């Protein structure tokens, strides 16, 4: 039986280290101890059990209690005032509010999980209220907007998105186009302006973004100067608005012309020349950046 040289306590037979200070047990070579029967026969599981702690459980139960009480109160009030047939919206709203609050405590506290859960619940809430009269109109646009927001702002932080960036970009573009199709269908009942206006404008936008990636992400220096980034965003935006103006004019008036975007188009051309210049010529770049002062 060994003693810990640091703590002075007697250790179990066959102990490899002191459980108090983790000092290794070094027995003389000729002494071999038989391992003692462990304090508990079953090895410790690798993880603890699941479930909520006292405070989380308390908060969830309190929300549920208040939900039950408020649902009963509202239902009775509407019953006695003869408006029970209109009770769905307040009762459904209270239930969804409680669910949203509960999920804020229960769901894992990461941006991805919380944002996903709350966007999902908000979509269900909006659809539920709109579907009350058995017709979905505005809620489809709102829910679609939430889906698009999720794909653009939440999905990119996921591990899947990081593992497959090109597939993610394609998904983002597809969902964006589907959302525009949805708006067109809900508002007009048909694909009226999608094919002649939205699709080609989007194509210009996608081409601009793709060009940015091709130009900047494939070059040797991976660090993109902030000025280049800002200029490129402006160029892509200005060209997209120009395209929108062009296709919209053709859709409405039947001829090809720019009506309100000439200034944007000019600015985009000037910025493109400037950006190409500074990209190609190091001298020009140094003239516009602080690097000339450190040369």
């Amino acid at each position, binding site marked *: 039986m060994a003693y*810990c040289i640091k*703590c*002075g*306590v*007697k*250790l*179990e037979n066959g*102990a*490899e*280290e*002191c*459980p*108090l*200070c983790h000092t290794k047990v070094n027995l003389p070579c000729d002494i071999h101890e038989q391992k*003692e*029967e*462990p*304090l*508990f*026969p*079953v*090895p*410790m*599981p*690798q*993880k*603890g*059990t*699941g*479930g*909520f*702690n*006292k*405070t*989380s*459980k*308390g*908060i*969830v*139960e*309190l929300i*549920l*209690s208040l939900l*039950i009480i408020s649902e009963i109160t509202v239902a009775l009030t509407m019953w006695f005032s003869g408006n029970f047939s209109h009770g769905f919206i307040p009762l459904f709203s209270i239930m969804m509010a409680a669910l949203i609050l509960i999920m804020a405590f229960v769901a894992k506290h990461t941006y991805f999980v919380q944002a996903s859960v709350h966007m999902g619940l908000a979509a269900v809430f909006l659809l539920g209220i709109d579907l009350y009269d058995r017709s979905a109109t505005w809620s489809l646009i709102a829910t679609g907007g939430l889906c698009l927001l999720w794909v653009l702002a939440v999905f990119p932080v996921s591990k899947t998105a990081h593992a497959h960036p090109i597939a993610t970009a394609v998904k983002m573009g597809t969902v964006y186009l589907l959302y525009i199709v949805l708006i067109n269908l809900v508002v007009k009942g048909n694909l009226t302006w999608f094919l002649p206006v939205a699709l080609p404008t989007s194509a210009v936008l996608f081409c601009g973004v793709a060009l940015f990636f091709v130009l900047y992400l494939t070059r040797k220096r991976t660090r993109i100067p902030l000025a280049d980034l800002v200029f490129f965003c402006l160029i892509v935006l200005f060209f997209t608005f120009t395209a929108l103006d062009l296709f919209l004019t053709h859709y409405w008036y039947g001829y090809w012309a720019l009506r309100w975007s000439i200034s944007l188009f000019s600015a985009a051309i000037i910025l493109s020349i400037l950006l190409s210049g500074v990209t190609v010529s190091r001298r020009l770049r140094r003239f516009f950046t602080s690097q000339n002062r450190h040369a």
Partner: protein
Amino acid sequence: MIKVQSYAPEGFIALDNSALIYPPTEAKFNANTFRVSVDLEQEIVPQVLELALQDTLQRCSYAKVSLHKGFFWYYLSPNDKPPVIHPEGSYPSARFNFKDNNGYLFRVLYSNHRIALECFHSLTDGSGALVYLKMIVQQYCHLAGIADFSFSGALDFSSKPSKQEFSDPFQHLYDKNLPGSPSTGSTYHRVGKGSYDDRVKVISAMLDGQALRKRAKERGATITEYLSSLLIWTLQEFQKQEVPVQKKRKPIRLSIPMNLRKIFHYDTMRNFTLFAVVGIEPALGEYTFDEILKKVRLELALSQDPKRNRSQIKRNVGGERHILMRFAPNIIKNPLFKLLSNSLGDDLYSAVISNLGYVQMPEELQDSLSRMDFYLCPGQLNKVALAVIGWKDKVVVNFTSFFNADTELERLFCTFLVEDGIPVEISTNRSNEV
């Protein structure tokens, strides 16, 4: 529906005053369970243990109950399902799964040489559980042909249960004319290092009883006073490191369960415990071990004053009898109990140390007994708990902890004992990981 006792109403038995808080606050990190166990030299035969348990429940029919949620309060109701015994697990005082246990509020476990009784605190307290365990062991030894004896303090199998055994003395001792004892403020809680989860990690320190008694006696203290003072001293050392500015240091207080049966002479098998709160004010300066011991001794003596205890009982039972508490439905009370139990309970002390005292062994069992243990479940705020039990010439101090790797408190505690001349033998379930 079966009847528990002739005097008990059918199907509905109110929880005793101190049991009320446990069902609503049961959660992860708050199992509200504890365990007493006996290790014998002989191999345990599960079938015989099952019979011994049935005989014990036949005698103590008030333990054949299950917990139910009523509209206003939780309540107990007679349980006619057969009791189940379970093989020993990897750690003590885990959360109870009542369904797996046929609804019973206790769980009997066995391993090669061990008989363990784990109780949910709504059934009984440590002293009550020890009586149940003594009866199970006594009957087991009788049926297994190991020895025939009767434990001192155990109930007589041949007698009928008395009315007092399942009475709630808190209700008898309640006096509405007394002032309620004042509450204390929040205390220091050790943060600890590293991760933690709800697996209960044990470090069991087996002390030489003679040496411990001698060292405590030299300082004019009992074993409880000595060990409590040592725990306070240990916590003081941690706070000194964590809070360098003296005046910002919070009070360190311990919660020490007191067995009121000895004070009020009741033989109840339900909860009959109050908590003595003893401690120091590190903001006033550093205390030496002897200064802490002196303070603990005085405060423990004061805590055992029956008048003071009745005032505490008045506060506790008064709360239960308050009109808002009585008529508020369970769905409101439950979450509020959960949310307020930290600020009104766990936050008022820095650690728990419970001493079940010395267990007198019958002559016939002296050779068969190899070990006795007592374990508490720790909490989320105070992640280390201490349980003490004495048998033969040994005193076992069991540290139960939620920390995965932090054993600093245990190390400081045991090193002090070794330096004070008390031999300490350590065993653990920490090294027994998958």
